[in-house]
């Protein structure tokens, strides 16, 4: 396996910059990386001498670990910048932070930030490729890639598959990136949640279906994805209580019956068991939630490999 010029030095802000062929190429590469992750010695020397920086301005342990493991397994050096213990907390601007990091010789940035568009800023200030690890409610393309990879690996194809995504669509960056990637690859996406958690113009923007009723939304679904319901949305006046939300939108044995038999169950994590999903579903044989996490490392390895011009 080898990277191709079209990937080298390129940033990943969101999936709309990548063609369906390019996405499939990344998935193929991820397949190879997954094989490495199953070895006893999970390391290859391809990115030796390269330095990857995880720049996490918003807290996230899992995604950061996934990026760092991915870089380590390709033998890149990893430096980790966390806002909670850093100069950004002392009021330093993102621009100054990036200038400082850049002076230390970073080859690739993986950024998580609460402000949409900040990965583009990091690229502007550093001139280096940037992988978006989640920017506010805007995009989370590596999560979308690992979601798509997980479906593709399990079901063997993507075109024509029906996926229903349920929950807080308004505040989800995962949904936005999933929608772009999945529709690009020919999947049919339905989003479902109460009107107060549904952003405007979804059908027009993404070509998806919008349903407010769970039973209706789940009809004929090959895959069902739950989203984390965040407690703080209650105080914003978007819904009255988790209990009431759960009563209408929880993924349970009862509700999942509306989907196809043996439909795959997914969740980007972390889960609120008992609120958006019941353990009976999360831990069922249909669930690929744990696999998604494993695939996340493989997909991120593939991206770093391609962007930094790796060779196998």
């Amino acid at each position: 396996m080898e990277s191709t010029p079209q990937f080298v030095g390129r940033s990943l802000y969101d999936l709309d910059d990548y063609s369906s062929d390019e996405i499939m190429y990344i998935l193929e590469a991820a397949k190879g990386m997954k094989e490495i992750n199953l070895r006893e010695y999970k390391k290859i020397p391809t990115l030796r001498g390269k330095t990857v920086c995880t720049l996490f301005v918003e807290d996230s342990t899992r995604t950061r670990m996934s990026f760092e493991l991915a870089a380590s397994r390709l033998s890149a050096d990893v430096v980790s910048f966390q806002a909670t213990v850093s100069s950004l907390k002392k009021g330093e601007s993102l621009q100054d932070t990036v200038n400082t990091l850049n002076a230390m010789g970073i080859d690739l940035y993986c950024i998580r930030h609460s402000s949409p568009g900040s990965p583009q800023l990091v690229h502007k200030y550093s001139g280096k490729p940037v992988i978006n690890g989640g920017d506010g409610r805007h995009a989370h393309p590596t999560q979308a890639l690992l979601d798509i990879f997980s479906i593709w690996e399990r079901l063997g194809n993507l075109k024509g598959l029906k996926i229903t995504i349920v929950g807080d669509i308004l505040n989800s960056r995962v949904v936005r990136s999933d929608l772009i990637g999945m529709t690009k690859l020919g999947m049919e996406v339905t989003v479902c949640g109460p009107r107060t958690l549904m952003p405007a113009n979804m059908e027009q923007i993404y070509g998806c279906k919008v349903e407010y009723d769970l039973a209706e939304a789940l009809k004929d679904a090959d895959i069902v994805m739950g989203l984390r319901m965040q407690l703080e949305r209650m105080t914003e006046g978007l819904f009255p209580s988790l209990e009431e939300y759960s009563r209408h939108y929880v993924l349970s044995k009862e509700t999942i019956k509306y989907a196809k038999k043996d439909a795959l169950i997914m969740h980007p994590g972390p889960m609120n068991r008992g609120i958006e999903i019941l353990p009976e579903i999360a831990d069922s044989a249909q669930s690929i939630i744990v696999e998604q996490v494993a695939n996340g490392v493989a997909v991120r390895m593939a991206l770093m490999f391609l962007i930094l011009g790796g060779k196998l």
Partner: protein
Amino acid sequence: MTTLIKNGIAYINNRFSRKDILLKNGKIQRIAQTINLDKVDQIIDTSGKYVFPGFVDIHTHLRDPGQTYKEDIASGTRAAAHGGFTTLCAMPNTEPVVDNIASVDYVQRRAKDLGSARVFVIGAITKKSEGLEISEMATMKSGGIVAVSDDGNCVQNAKLMLNCMRYATNFGLPLIIHAEDYNLSGKGQINGGKVATKLGLTGISPLAEEVIVARDIMLAENCGAQLHIAHISTARSIELIREAKERGVKVTCEVTPHHLLLTEEACLNFDTNTKMKPPLRTEKDRQACVKALKEGIIDCIATDHAPHADFEKAREFDQAPFGIIGLEIAFPVLYHYLVKQGYLSLERLVEALTSAPVKILNLPESALKTGNPADLTIIDLGAETIFTPESILSKSKNTPWLNQKVSSKVLYTFLEGRQTWKAE
């Protein structure tokens, strides 16, 4: 000092005709078909060029006192002259807020000493523009303010606003409102629409503007106040104003160059120079603004010149401040994109930048007329302007038109016969 401007195409009484204009002792001394004089200090041949009355901006943020790293009275009025403006109205949201006569005096004195434009002061509606208590409007009026406004802020309490209107009306002061319901706008960054959904940015619903426009029209109608609505941005707001005008409510409004020319689509690349309040709206709203300006439902154009330093705008989108500069940009972009493309007549554009704003705030006339102050600007519509960080005279360079080239170029600006701008 005498200046003879020869052969220009002059805008007089909303029409264009070829005239010679003689400026003497700060006044327009003569306008005639041909003036031949031997003893003049300066003769400017303006064959093929246009001579307009000095433009008037009733919505400028000079940032002085308090934020002079963004702009000050000297740089802001220099920028005005560069854009063909000779008269500005300074918004009071400085640090401290212009809510007292001492601050009014400060701005007026500095403008007189250092200014390349005439500056009128707008006082705050409420103390510190906090929306809690009525400011000393009457005292400020005696010090020379021409209107009151809490621009940048909006009085949320309807009862207090009604009292402010009644009080301002008592002293003959028009009120200029920035229509924004804080609960509806919330932490919004751009228009609450398609682009906000796509970019994951919090939206500012058009309703945030419209409910306050509706409320303040009703309040003004109730107490007879003179209400001027700043930077109108939605089709529905325009309809509300149209209906109010038809009912005879004393309401006027303005529109900015950016709301006439840009839409929310401009935000797609996260350029913080497309971030302002009210936000850029949809194409439907933009077209409604152009149409309403043409028809006179929108009375005038105002720049909402809002300078911010590079380091402030070079932030994450949701952390960057709202606002863009406009004084130097307004005429060239409006001429290029509206007049040249046939969407607006040159006559209406000039009217909306001169006699219309003057009428709203009852300011001294800006017209090419014998005996008037020699405030005018000479513009070559055939030449081009590129807005570069070097060419922009404002201290701040925050404009979405940075490094863009447009038709027309301001060649000269005169304030009371004194040359305040001359192109290289």
